[in-house]
């Protein structure tokens, strides 16, 4: 169990990382940290893809992981732009205080 590493080990690790990221998204009150936590969750997901791709000998796992990476990059870009704009107009990054959708 400790010395013999199976795919399940990697998936459990991914699940733990995912849970920690989720906690960050749910509980933190800084938009930037929430974004960081989302990145964490995406990476956990990637880890699962790659692990299962390795396990099944299928290249699809890596391909999807690459696409997820692209999506993550796009998400980070847009998210950061929004954060920059929000912090400029609202002078806060606390999502609790951002209750208005008007600019």
């Amino acid at each position, binding site marked *: 169990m400790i010395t013999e590493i199976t795919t399940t080990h990697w998936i459990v690790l991914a699940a733990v990382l995912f849970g920690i990221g*989720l906690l960050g998204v*749910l*509980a933190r009150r800084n938009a930037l940290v929430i974004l960081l936590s989302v990145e964490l969750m995406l990476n956990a997901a990637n880890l699962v893809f790659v692990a299962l791709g390795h396990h099944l000998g299928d290249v699809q796992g890596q391909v999807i992981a690459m696409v997820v990476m692209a999506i993550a990059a796009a998400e980070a870009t847009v998210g950061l732009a929004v954060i920059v704009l929000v912090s400029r107009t609202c002078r806060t990054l606390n*999502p*609790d205080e951002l*209750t208005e959708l008007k600019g």
Partner: protein
Amino acid sequence: MNILAALIPVFPLLGFAFIILNGKRLGERAPIVAVGASLISAVIALFAYTRVLATHTPLSWSFEWIAWGEGAIRMGVHIDGVGAVMLFMVTVVGTLIEIYAIGYMKGDYYYSRFFAYMSLFMAGMLGMVVADNMLLLFVSWEIMGLCSYFLIGFYTAKPSANAAGIKAFLTTRLGDVGLMMGIFLLWWTAGTINFEELGLVVPQLQMLGMDHLTLALTIAAVLIFVGTIGKSAQFPLHVWLPDAMEGPTPVSALIHAATMVAAGVFLVARTFMVFVNFPDALELVAVVGGFTALFAALIALTQTDIKRVLAYSTLSQLGYMVMALGLGAYAAGIFHLITHAFFKALLFMGAGAVIHGYHHVQDIRRMGGLRHSMPRTHISFLVATLAIAGCPLFSGFWSKDEILLAAFHGNRILWGVGTFTAFLTAFYMFRLYLLTFTGRQRDTAIRPHESPRVMTTPLLILAVFAFGIGFPGSPLMHFWVQGAIHPSYLPHTEHAVNLGIMGISTAAALLGFVLAVLMYGPSPKILPERVAAGFGKLYQLSLHKFYIDEIYQSVIIAPTVGLARLLFGFDQGAIDGSVNGTGRGVRLISGAARWLTAGNLQWYAITFLAGAVGLALIALRALAG
């Protein structure tokens, strides 16, 4: 020329549009537009009817209005003999009354609006007269009804005027529904609603001798007559006309005496081809007319409001015309329509001048001796009274006599009713005249004055007509009018003089006059109170208009209102209750659910997560199972 005839109703319509759009700017100048439009129409009409009457050929112009596979509806104008004399009457009387109204309505807050409505009414009336089909006639008919409603309720601040307007509108609407169904049935049966075509088609259908066709046409005739009952205020839909006197007096003169109420009679005349060969329909017309004539005259005996006496008199005279048509005396009925329009308009305008000069008092018991203070009004009113009472040589004499002659040959009972009504008419008209203009003024607090020239001049012009308009239809001129308006589909009728009948009706009128003088003259021999006491219950019946309004109130209106209340309660309780209950329930649920969506993003994420965990657990169960 023919297309010009189509423009006759257009000018008043343009006048209406112009006044209603520029009311504030026009102000005191509004009557110039209205009277001007009427005058232009009058001039065109003059050309039209002189040509029709001189050449004896109808004037018509039409265009294809709606075309479909099998045929087309044509829309246009058709002026034949009866249309021509109607045009003459409507344009002359209408223009004179509009001029009169310049003085009568002076200072009214809605001065320009009044003339706008009058113009619209003129457009409707002229449109109806020149229409060549039932559809255009019906549209014009409804325009008139609408104007009637507007003008009865013209004094909007007066609740009784508003109520009277609504009553008139609703009551005539009953008749209009009948007319509409009649038009549909006629269209369906005869396949056309063009008057000329109907004149050809209906006799052919009649000749086929098929029972169901005869039945359909008879029903159509009766339904059209229902329209007449509503518009011409025949029994049992007569109740609106006396109340319509709430409107300004020029309106009473134009709409509720001379033209619109006579439109019902004109309608029967226009569609006479449908009636003429169906004895059942004709008999109904005659009986309704005769009954209304007598019934209204009986009520008129005891009324004390100057305009109401005249209103019941109008009912009675309209009954005369309807009776004449029902007896088949087409020309006599129309002839009486024309003469009546002149003298009744004159009577109303005289009454208006009296009211105007007597500080808006309308109760004849408070008047008296006005001949000194209102000489011009007095003389014209006297002429009109003589005309309606049937004094020889005056216009009413000739036309009434024709009708009575027709009744004598057609139906002796109706002849008796007509003659008795003539007696009553003479009596109540002289009662009105004597109480108003002779004797001593009974209410000395009021200082009467003569009306301005702009009002009295039309009175005097109309007085000339009221005296002389009967001659063209009299034996002295060989019944020229009757010949001119005789429709081609009717067989030729001989007009003769029956001196006996003439003598009896003159005697009846004279009797009425003598009785009126005895009761209301300078030195009364019979006291009206004793007569009233002598007749007892009958007097009360007449005074309360035979309780018709009360009967309608308890038999029709009260149950209707009760049912409406019931339905209202059901609507409020059950239907609105369930609708509102649904709304309230949703509000309650959504109020409870609102805390779920308070705008907190992370709270959303947690609920989302809860769903995900739930799904994962379900998946686990599936895997384990």
